[in-house]
């Protein structure tokens, strides 16, 4: 039989079976679930990836109870060394917004716009995010957050008065860095010279001593906090290796912030279980419905039989029907997913450029199309094999 007639019969069969509405719905739901799970996984993974690989906080090892003069900066995989208290400071602007200043070597950063630390002579300069947040500590990505997010270019070469206890200096923004490259998702971190952080720390120490003296207490234990060295590593993937090396030398070492690998593995397992669950569920339901669908087909199959159609043709028609089913449901799923994606972005008003983007896994469309093909093929295969040898006998049973 010519292919166009197969297509004709399969199309007839597909569009006239009510059960195919259920099959299509099932495949759409499973496709959306697979797309959702994989897209969520991809989004999550990218967050993990970015925060692990780029965020400076995830590349920091703290070495406890060491001498202030100990120099570990020449060690393999160490980018630079400072002390815990001389790394970063919270400061307030004259408008009482808060910023985090991080002290880095002059050549540590890459700058997207403007100048770098080593390019200028001035002392009090800083490099801020290309889009940065001025306000209290941001808690969530809401409209308020978006309103307070500024375009760094408007602020380049502008100055802020930064204050801390006993400290007040005029700081100029000389350059802009990519927020996702150094401090993932932290929109209020600015980088400055390490010496400035030391100044702030000393001023704070002075302040504490004054406070202490005013209260007429014993102030001997208030000293510059030596004792904890802070190592910023180059390669986050070798953090364990470096940590072990230090531990072998007798140091007490802890990571400053860590996303534990086992948590990620656990998450991957959960995602895998979810996907497999979706597939098994769809398979089971499709199988049940396809069996019913085959029974529904029975009368038509009997007519075909009487007209001399052999089983192979009928089976091929059924398979072709399942391909049509997969194509139709995939197309509808893609449309539905696009609508959901647009709606989600609209609801959460997520500006892709600045916040964590929601990734759509295009691969999942292909995957779910293939899965739906396999599911409908298999369920038809089993349904046919169960019914096949009884078609002739059924014919006698049927009142014709």
């Amino acid at each position, binding site marked *: 039989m*010519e292919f166009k007639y197969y297509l004709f019969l399969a199309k007839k069969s597909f569009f006239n079976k009510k059960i195919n509405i259920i099959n299509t719905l099932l495949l759409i739901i499973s496709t959306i679930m697979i797309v959702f799970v994989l897209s969520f996984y991809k989004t999550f993974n990218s967050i993990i990836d970015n925060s692990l690989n780029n965020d400076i906080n995830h590349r920091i090892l703290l070495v406890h109870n060491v001498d202030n003069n100990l120099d570990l900066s020449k060690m393999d995989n160490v980018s630079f060394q400072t002390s815990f208290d001389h790394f970063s400071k919270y400061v307030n602007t004259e408008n009482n917004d808060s910023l985090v200043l991080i002290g880095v070597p002059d050549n540590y950063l890459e700058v997207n716009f403007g100048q770098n630390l080593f390019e200028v002579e001035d002392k009090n300069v800083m490099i801020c995010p290309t889009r940065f947040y001025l306000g209290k500590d941001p808690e969530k990505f809401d409209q308020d957050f978006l309103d307070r997010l500024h375009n760094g270019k408007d602020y380049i070469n502008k100055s802020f008065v930064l204050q801390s206890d006993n400290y007040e200096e005029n700081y100029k923004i000389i350059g802009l860095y990519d927020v996702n490259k150094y401090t993932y998702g932290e929109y209020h971190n600015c980088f400055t010279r390490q010496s400035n952080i030391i100044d702030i720390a000393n001023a704070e120490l002075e302040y504490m001593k004054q406070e202490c003296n005013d209260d007429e207490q014993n102030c001997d234990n208030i000293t510059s906090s030596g004792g904890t060295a802070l190592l910023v590593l180059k390669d986050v993937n070798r953090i364990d290796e470096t940590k072990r090396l230090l531990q072998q030398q007798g140091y007490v070492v802890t990571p400053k912030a860590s996303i534990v690998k086992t948590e990620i593995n656990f998450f991957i397992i959960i995602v895998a279980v979810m996907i497999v669950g979706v597939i098994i569920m769809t398979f089971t339901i499709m199988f049940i419905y396809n069996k019913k669908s085959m029974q529904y087909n029975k009368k038509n199959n009997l007519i075909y039989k*009487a*007209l001399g159609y052999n089983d192979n043709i009928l089976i091929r028609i059924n398979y072709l029907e399942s391909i049509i089913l997969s194509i139709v449901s995939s197309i509808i799923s893609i449309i539905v997913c696009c609508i959901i994606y647009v709606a989600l972005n609209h609801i959460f008003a997520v500006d892709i450029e600045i916040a964590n983007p929601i990734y759509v896994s295009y691969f999942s469309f292909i995957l779910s199309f293939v899965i739906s093909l396999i599911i409908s093929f298999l369920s038809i295969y089993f349904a046919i094999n169960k019914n096949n040898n009884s078609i002739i006998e059924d014919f006698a049973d049927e009142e*014709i």
Partner: protein
Amino acid sequence: MVALRVKNIRKYYYLKNETITALDDISYNFEYGKMYVIMGHSGSGKSTLVQCLGTLDKPTSGQIFIDGEDVAKMSSWEINEIRNLKIGFIFQNYNLNNTMKAYENVMLPMLINKKYRKLDIQKQACKLLRDIGLNDRLNHYPKQLSGGEQQRVAIARAIANDPKIILADEPTGNLDEENELFILKKLRDMTNEGKCVIIVSHNSNIKEYADVVINMKKGKFIDYGI
């Protein structure tokens, strides 16, 4: 010339507590150019016989020869080809595919007929329907047609591949007299063209058209009228 030869066929249905004998040792030759009417009470085995003759069912024992060839020795592939090319079925409840238009139903047997590969099947189907008086019903679905019209579509479908054997199981059972007459005349015409036409019927009017009237009782042929 003998179209269908049955030799000592028996058909048993094995139920839980009993064995039903639907066909009980029937031997007979059905010839081309003759119209056979099989009559008998309900349950006498008429439908079972027709289904065995049409290879839709297998007798428990005995042989059936179509154009001299033993059906039991044919592959399922050959049997399908015989059903497609040599036998036309007409059923009491028409058995049309409800999801297809009238002409599409008529096209069905032609789709798998190699002979039609180069011909315009759709045109051919429409011609058959016009010949049987359904000029303005080509694009209707079975549900939109009356019983008589549906049976005409079924007849057009049965003769689409120009089979030489027509098996009709109570073809006029659900129809009024006018339609019945039309269909009987059609079947008679086919007989005159040289086909072997076997009709199961309750209706004694049909005897006028028949060459042979066979009475069945409890799975046996009890007499062969003329």
